[in-house]
């Protein structure tokens, strides 16, 4: 059973980790966009 739970947990860790990187990238781009608007 531990292998089964490990597989399900690891699957969601991979997906959540990837979504986490997307959130970070989105936040950075929003910041850069605001800086550009302020400068112009």
């Amino acid at each position, binding site marked *: 059973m531990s292998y089964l739970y490990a*597989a399900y947990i*690891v699957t969601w860790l991979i997906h959540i980790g990837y*979504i986490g990187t*997307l959130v970070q*990238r*989105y936040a950075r*781009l929003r910041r*850069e966009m605001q800086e550009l608007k302020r*400068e112009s």
Partner: protein
Amino acid sequence: MKRAFPILAVVTLALLGYSAYEALVVAPTDRLQGDVYRIIYYHVPSAWTMFTFFAINFVASVIYLIRRNLKADAVAVAAAEMGVVFNTVVLVTGPLWARPVWGIWWTWDIRLTSTLVLWLIYVSYLLLRRFSSGGQMPLLAATLAVFGALDMPLVYFSIWFFRTQHPQPVVGGGGSIDPRMLHIWLLNWFAFECFGLLVFWWRYRLEMMRREVEETQELESLLETRSPR
């Protein structure tokens, strides 16, 4: 799509929760493997979703090579990332199933090796896009994607044409499966496809946003260098 995104996200999460419940609780236990076989409800749908995204990457790359369409290039990079994520899930869940069933984590047979090679091809595709610059980069990446896609039929058909350690095809390959298992299998596949397409759409929007910011930054720096001091 922007307004529908939160609703679709909630529906997809509910679908994923329901399909996980069906896989872990409702699906009958396998007579030979016991409960560990339930890993296939995540492993196989992840593999099929991986194929979907690498196929999208292939089509978008071909469109880019023919028409030099920048939206197709953005679709290609988003699909490649999604494909690599699902490929990683396949490569991790496979050994977690193999260890208790085969007694080994990994074997260098053609299905497993070609799947690892597929992962390496698309990781190198993403590294090429990440660390090179210049106008030729999308062209090089699209060419690599077209050649990389040649590995997909090898991965898919390897269990048809070669004797491998990997189980033979159950769906569409002459094998049999309990209809209840098949139903839950297809449900999980549908749930992962919906989840993947939702994240893919977001990744595509992010890519378009990134390009917009980069273009504006380049324009700003060009204007700064040309303006009199």
